[in-house]
């Protein structure tokens, strides 16, 4: 009897054990736990991540169903995957563009949407909560929603956004039916929701943030506190001491201040504020300690943003030439926007054609139309103006007035927006965003600080782009740009009539008072009064030099009547100088010459400072290794070639030189480098300090800065000698004793990371030439991940006739298993191009789809 009971118990226990274990296993496989996804679903070979294999094949031709098309649309792909769409109406065209782009870039589009909407953690897990918090505070989605509200549904932009959205959703519906989601979704089980026009505007906002949102004033706050106001102003001045080559040399007009008609979508409405009771606070100067603490907090949080989310590096070259500067005498344009490199690329190359539109170039996945390219008569490219578009305000608060801030003579209640951040594998995170009249509060550490960012004012960029796309001359082009507000961009222009120019539309905030490069008082006196009127923004048309060049240098001269930013905002101008030099190198340049200039790796700063270094080394006691290194530099052409040992010596010398001169000051004044490496770390070559060194080395070798605080007197030559000794010793330790073997490529590489941040899905790092100041830009450190994201040359050979070429580092597909994932990288790396074909030029041998609403 006892045995029976015992056997029954054992059997029940066995059954229970089997059930519990199986239940646990199936729960984990079916639901997932914590960061572990539901592996049963994820690895199901038919519907899990494996289903993405279908998207890894080259597409086959045929008819595809896209609901809503009024007529068939033709899509073709050449051997490299470069696409063209021909449709019977603009509506069909943008619907097809949405479908085709989503077909190849849905993950990228969704990640951009998630980044801007503060929904990354829903896909990526707890690690993305900081990013989501920052973006929800900054309010990209709120701005996008406001922009959509202001877009008339029957306007060209409204119709384009709606049609594009429908096309994207046609693809999402396909995926829902077929379950062949891109691998990221198959693995995580978090699928993208339906696309909306607001999502497209969020993508626009993300690009605006990348180009326009700057934390430079926070760096100034830390410098002001540590280095002191005097040295900060002297070493990080508003206007550079070095010679510049502005594309708009003047004369300038002071046209006063233009009002900003649109309201900041992330600011409390001043008209709706009812003053609260209470006395005014005691007037006090801004507390630099608290401002520095606030700056530290914001910068620390900004470090959690995905790579490239904030503006960190100078972006882009674009130039145009005409007349005698161009072979054939018409106009020619080159453009290479520099961005955080990624796989897939920021760009999707496409040709769009309808009865009302014929445009070819680089589109931004998630947005209709083409951002950079050409139509039948005009071509254009962009560089970032890099004016100061971000203002920080130190708000006055008081424990006696909780939930309020003092503005325009009264205590005002903060407005609140509530969010819940969904987190994959974690608990949802509640978030309250406080809004002041200036914008969202981004920290309460040290000092309640809000940010007034021009990107938070809705900007009808798509309307401007659509107008550019149909413009036929400079007048139409310039007029179209009147509506472009953010991000401020240098639009470079060339047309088939031989005209060239640049216009830099956008908001250039002008404050009523105060030093806008520092956090400003939030009490009202330093509020934004308006912007530079459109007719007074930097611009140039058909200059006598027959060339216009923008490479993020200060676009105007010292006598420009408006404040637009400091030396920390703009590029030092070495790329612009080299490009201008290149454009004057020959009597008449062709597309190959422009292409060569885009791949040029001449460092103009090296060209100026190395001769001074060699002079400093004259007569100095050098050991054999130092002599060899010096001899290598003699006669060097300043080219940062991958195989160049001189490039290594120069770069290490420059970093050591910056350290020799400024590190003693940084140490003495306790400059908090670790709190703001992006602005203050010397190895990151702050543009203001680089220009200081240039200026002092060439013209002021006895500048007191060369003498360390409390140390013996020293001049530039002594500092250079010390830096040279350190550089060569460091190189010997890192690369061996023979200076001839110190190839730049052994120190410096390029990497193109995957947008998923998975190293194996990226490209490189591989040895590469270039540096932050070469036209072929390589920024972001010794493993450079920032540079030319698109290269284009358009030569106008006659009326409505262009020879256009382009390339970008990536491929049209985001699927790593696709042959079109990275097929363009080698061409880009070698400085080669592919024809940039219009829809009419796409070949008869192309792979073709017919998109139809039937079926």
């Amino acid at each position, binding site marked *: *009897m006892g*045995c*029976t009971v015992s*056997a029954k118990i054992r*059997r029940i226990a*066995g*059954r229970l*054990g*089997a*059930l519990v*274990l*199986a239940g646990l*296993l*199936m729960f984990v*496989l*079916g639901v997932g736990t914590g960061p572990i996804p539901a*592996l*049963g*679903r994820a*690895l*199901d*070979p*038919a*519907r*899990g*991540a*494996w289903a*993405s*294999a*279908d998207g*890894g*094949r080259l597409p086959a031709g045929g008819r595809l169903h896209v609901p809503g098309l009024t007529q068939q649309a033709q899509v073709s792909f050449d051997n490299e995957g470069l696409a063209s769409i021909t449709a019977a109406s603009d509506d069909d065209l943008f619907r097809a563009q949405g479908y085709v782009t989503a077909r190849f870039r849905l993950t990228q589009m969704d990640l951009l949407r998630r980044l801007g909407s503060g929904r990354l953690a829903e896909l990526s897990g707890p690690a993305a909560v900081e990013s989501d918090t920052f973006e929800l505070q900054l309010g990209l989605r709120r701005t996008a929603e406001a922009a959509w509200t202001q877009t008339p549904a029957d306007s060209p932009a409204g119709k384009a956004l709606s049609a594009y959205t429908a096309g994207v959703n046609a693809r999402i519906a396909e995926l829902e039916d077929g*379950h062949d989601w891109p*691998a*990221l979704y198959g*693995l995580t089980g978090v699928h993208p929701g339906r696309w909306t026009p607001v999502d497209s505007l969020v993508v626009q906002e993300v690009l605006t943030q990348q180009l326009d949102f700057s934390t430079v004033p926070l760096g100034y706050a830390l410098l002001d506190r540590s280095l002191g106001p005097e040295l900060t102003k002297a070493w990080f001045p508003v206007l550079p001491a070095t010679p510049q080559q502005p594309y708009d040399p003047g004369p300038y007009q002071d046209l006063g201040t233009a009002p900003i008609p649109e309201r900041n979508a992330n600011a409390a409405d001043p008209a709706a504020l009812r003053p609260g009771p209470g006395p005014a606070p005691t007037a006090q100067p801004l507390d630099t300690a608290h401002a520095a603490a606030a700056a530290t907090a914001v910068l620390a949080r900004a470090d959690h943003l995905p790579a490239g989310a904030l503006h960190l590096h100078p972006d882009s070259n674009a130039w145009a030439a005409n007349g005698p500067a161009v072979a054939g005498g018409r106009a020619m344009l080159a453009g290479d926007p520099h961005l955080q490199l990624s796989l897939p690329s920021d760009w999707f190359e496409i040709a769009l054609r309808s009865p009302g539109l014929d445009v070819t170039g680089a589109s931004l996945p998630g947005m209709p139309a083409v951002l950079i390219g050409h139509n039948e008569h005009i071509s254009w490219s962009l560089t970032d103006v890099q004016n100061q578009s971000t203002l920080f305000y130190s708000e006055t608060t008081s424990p006696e007035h909780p939930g309020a801030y003092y503005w325009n003579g009264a205590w005002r209640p903060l407005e609140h927006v509530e969010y819940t951040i969904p987190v994959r594998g974690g608990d949802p995170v509640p978030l309250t965003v406080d809004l002041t009249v200036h914008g969202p509060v981004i920290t309460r550490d040290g000092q309640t600080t809000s940010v007034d960012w021009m990107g938070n004012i809705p900007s009808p960029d798509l309307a401007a782009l659509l107008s550019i796309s149909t413009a036929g001359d400079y007048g139409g082009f310039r007029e179209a740009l009147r509506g472009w507000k953010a991000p401020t961009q240098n639009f470079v222009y060339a047309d088939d009539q031989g005209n060239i120019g640049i216009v830099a539309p956008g908001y250039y905030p002008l404050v009523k008072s105060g030093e806008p490069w520092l956090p400003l008082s939030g009490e009202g006196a330093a509020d934004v009064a308006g912007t530079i009127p459109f007719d007074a923004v930097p611009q140039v048309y058909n200059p006598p030099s027959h060339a216009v060049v923008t490479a993020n240098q200060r676009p105007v001269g010292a006598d420009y009547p408006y404040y637009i930013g400091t030396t920390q905002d703009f590029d030092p101008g070495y790329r612009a100088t080299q490009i201008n030099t290149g454009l004057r190198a020959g009597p008449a340049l062709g597309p190959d010459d422009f292409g060569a200039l885009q791949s040029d790796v001449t460092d103009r700063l090296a060209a100026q400072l190395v001769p001074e270094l060699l002079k400093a080394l004259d007569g100095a006691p050098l050991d054999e290794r130092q002599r060899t290194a010096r001899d290598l530099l003699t006669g060097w052409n300043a080219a940062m070639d991958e195989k160049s040992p001189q490039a290594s010596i120069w770069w290490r010398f420059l970093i050591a030189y910056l350290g020799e001169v400024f590190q003693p000051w940084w140490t003495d004044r306790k400059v908090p480098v670790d709190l703001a490496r992006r602005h203050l770390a010397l190895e990151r070559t702050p543009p203001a300090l680089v220009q200081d060194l240039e200026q002092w080395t060439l013209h002021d070798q006895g500048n007191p800065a060369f003498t360390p605080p409390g140390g013996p007197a020293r001049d530039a030559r002594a500092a250079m000698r010390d830096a040279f000794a350190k550089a060569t010793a460091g190189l010997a330790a890192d690369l061996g004793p023979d200076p001839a073997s110190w190839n730049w490529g052994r120190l410096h590489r390029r990497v193109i990371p995957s947008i*998923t941040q*998975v*190293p*194996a*899905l990226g490209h490189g790092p591989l040895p590469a030439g270039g540096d932050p100041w070469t036209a072929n830009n390589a920024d972001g450190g010794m493993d450079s991940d920032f540079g030319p994201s698109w290269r284009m040359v358009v030569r106008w050979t006659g009326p409505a006739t262009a020879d256009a070429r382009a390339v970008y580092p990536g491929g049209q597909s985001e*699927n*790593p*298993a*696709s042959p079109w994932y990275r097929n363009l990288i080698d061409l880009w790396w070698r400085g080669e191009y592919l024809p940039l074909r219009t829809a009419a030029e796409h070949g008869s041998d192309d792979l073709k789809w017919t998109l139809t609403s039937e079926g």
Partner: protein
Amino acid sequence: MRSQRMASGRFRNAAPLLIAPAGALLVALGSATGLWYAPFAAGVLTGAATGLRRMRLPGTLGSAVLIGAAGWAIPLAWRALAGQPVGATAETIAALAGLPSSAALAVAATLLVAVLQTLAGCAVGRAFLPRPRPTATEPALVPPVSVTSV
């Protein structure tokens, strides 16, 4: 009696050969229709069937492993035969999962998930099987103590 025992023994030997392909096909079909848990269901059936037929444990486990692994290998092979880049996709999956970017790892992990399901199913299937009453002519698969206590 001897022939019955021989037949039973032949079944036990041949059972995996019959059960495994059928089970694998079932799992593959289940996967195609979105039933990611088909390996578990197939495991339950396998556990029950092999238990009823008193298949020895190694044979049962072997069947379960075969059913799970082959059941999910078939759709992968199908994809490869259809020209889909299964190897490159496997590398992508491994990389996204935080593993070394190896196709073999992703395939192994996939088949392991299927096998774990079938084994778990098999354990459940066998655990809930009514205990067979041993006959006098057949050796019991369970200890004789349960016979005497009935």
